[in-house]
């Protein structure tokens, strides 16, 4: 029985990891930007849930919806002010602009809210569902459901709507997309905002299940990079599957090996993927060797 519980917990955690990583892989797939501040954005989402709960009594699943406009605004600002200026400017600019954003976010959080561990104390956070002798954490279940739902919506969006196809066009060939009079800047902006919303949402959904503090962005960020590399950069299906795999591995190794070595396992996976199949499960061959080129 415990094994079934572990697998379920792993899958649900995996769903959340998938949600985090979907934002990252979407941003990379379309803008060709690796968002080094991704973990920190997740952290902000977690804090949003915390403050909404502590100050306003809002349960996380309400914050999830209410905070979306905030995430969108934030994503828009970061895109307009910073990310847009890094496109086509070469590695140094692209890497260190988002690294810098990450540093600012993490330390601003530290200054504003200190490094203390915070937890959301609410009935919701501890809620557990019991089905035939198996226990399942409700927040994680909700997160899992949302992850699947968001993935589904994104899939429909990208494949069935005109706007979504425009996004895919830009992802495949920005220059031709321009020639087709697709406003690539707008597509970039919307995709980036979408990615930020995804990761902010993931943060809100994760908040009940983890301690919340500024540095937590780093460890989750690392996980999302591993998931994306495993799944294949730019692949949504990869982020989903990769998320599940990592979630399962984490829960199982946490149980059998103890929490300390959990992160060492990520590194191991990362290394194995690089050695054996660097494009990941679904990635295009060569995406990881692309780096970010100069346009001029």
């Amino acid at each position, binding site marked *: 029985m415990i094994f079934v519980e572990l697998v379920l917990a792993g899958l649900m955690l995996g769903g959340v990891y998938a949600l985090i990583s979907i934002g990252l892989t979407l941003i990379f797939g379309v803008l060709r930007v690796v968002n080094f501040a991704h973990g920190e954005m997740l952290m902000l989402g977690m804090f949003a849930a915390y403050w909404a709960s502590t100050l306003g009594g809002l349960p996380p699943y309400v914050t999830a919806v209410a905070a979306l406009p905030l995430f969108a605004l934030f994503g828009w600002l970061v895109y307009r002010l*910073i990310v847009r200026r890094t496109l086509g400017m070469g590695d140094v600019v692209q890497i*260190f602009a988002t690294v810098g*954003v990450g540093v600012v976010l*993490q330390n601003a959080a530290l200054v504003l809210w200190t490094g203390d561990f915070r937890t959301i104390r609410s009935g919701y956070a501890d809620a557990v569902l019991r089905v035939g002798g198996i226990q399942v954490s409700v927040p994680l279940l909700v997160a899992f459901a949302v992850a699947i739902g968001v993935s589904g919506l994104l899939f429909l969006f990208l494949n069935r709507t005109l706007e979504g196809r425009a996004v895919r066009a830009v992802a495949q060939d920005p220059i031709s997309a321009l020639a087709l009079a697709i406003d690539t800047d707008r597509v970039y902006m919307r995709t980036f905002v979408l990615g930020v919303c995804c990761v902010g949402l993931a943060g809100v959904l994760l908040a009940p299940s983890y301690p919340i503090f500024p540095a937590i962005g780093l460890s989750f960020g*690392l996980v999302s990079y591993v998931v994306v590399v495993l799944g294949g950069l730019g692949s949504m299906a990869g982020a989903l599957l990769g998320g599940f795999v990592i979630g399962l591995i984490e829960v199982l190794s946490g149980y059998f090996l103890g929490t300390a070595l959990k992160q060492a396992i990520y590194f191991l996976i990362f290394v194995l993927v690089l050695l054996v199949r*660097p494009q990941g499960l679904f990635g295009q061959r060569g995406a*990881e060797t692309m780096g970010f080129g100069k346009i001029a």
Partner: protein
Amino acid sequence: MTSTRPAVLLVVVLGLMALPLTTSNDYYLDIIVQIFLWGAAATAWNLLGGYAGQFSLGHAAFFGIGAYTSSLLLTGARVSPWLGMLAGALLAALFALVIGYLSIRLRGPFFTLSTIALTEVLQILAIHWRGLTGGSEGVSLPNAASVWTMTFDGRRTYAYVGLGFLLLAVLVSWLIERSRWGYYLVAIREEEDAARSIGVPVLGVKLGAAALSACLTAVVGTFYAQYVLWIEPAHTFSIDISIQLALMVIIGGLGTLLGPLIGASLIIPLNMFLRAWLGAAVSGLYLVIYGLVLVLVVLYARAGIVAEVQRVMRRHPVPRQSPA
């Protein structure tokens, strides 16, 4: 890719040698030691990041390996840090070769991603392998001044030892800059595919640069341990160190000989000043400023501050007096 003129270098070296003599104040001497220390580490980072264009955010790992190796050898086996330093350098080079080999096909941001993971893992190992590393409490080093244990009485002496390491790093960079290897590094940075098509042995060059950079960084890590006399995982294996090194070099000028030192001499005093002004309580604020500086420099002055200043000056040359 112009090589720095020897005359300029000589003046700079002489200036640096005179610097520790200009003050007896411990506070200022500490700043000087740190400028030399971090200048040396930044120069080491520059080999891989500036010349080869491979941006590592994992150099704290090598720094920490150097610090821990020599410290554990000293406290555990009474090995002199001068020797422990060599062991640390070797170990760091080994790690660099392994990581480098795995990441060899990764370009740009993906290479950077792979370097971040290493520091994290080492930090975790350092925290949990208490039997070896003393866990979160870290390692304390004996205070007794003795050349053999690389421990000195006055900060001024530390400054000169630190200067020695800085000059070592600069010398290595200078030699490489003028050698075939240096040309290969820059070629790879500029256009890796074109470099391959004209015979540049990319694998060997990148791995060599990574190993050398790691060695030098580890050596500075040993000196750091011997200066602060206490190391622990959170600060030694910290990504903040890696980011700081990158920041210094970017500000001073990537791929230039003296850029890293210039960056260090701007950042370190800024660091100390901010800490004093904002107070230790507001511990993250100076890092917020760092982050902002990094973003601004990279967006608007990515050739480095020195280069930008030169550029502005060239457009507005100082008017010369007409000859009498």
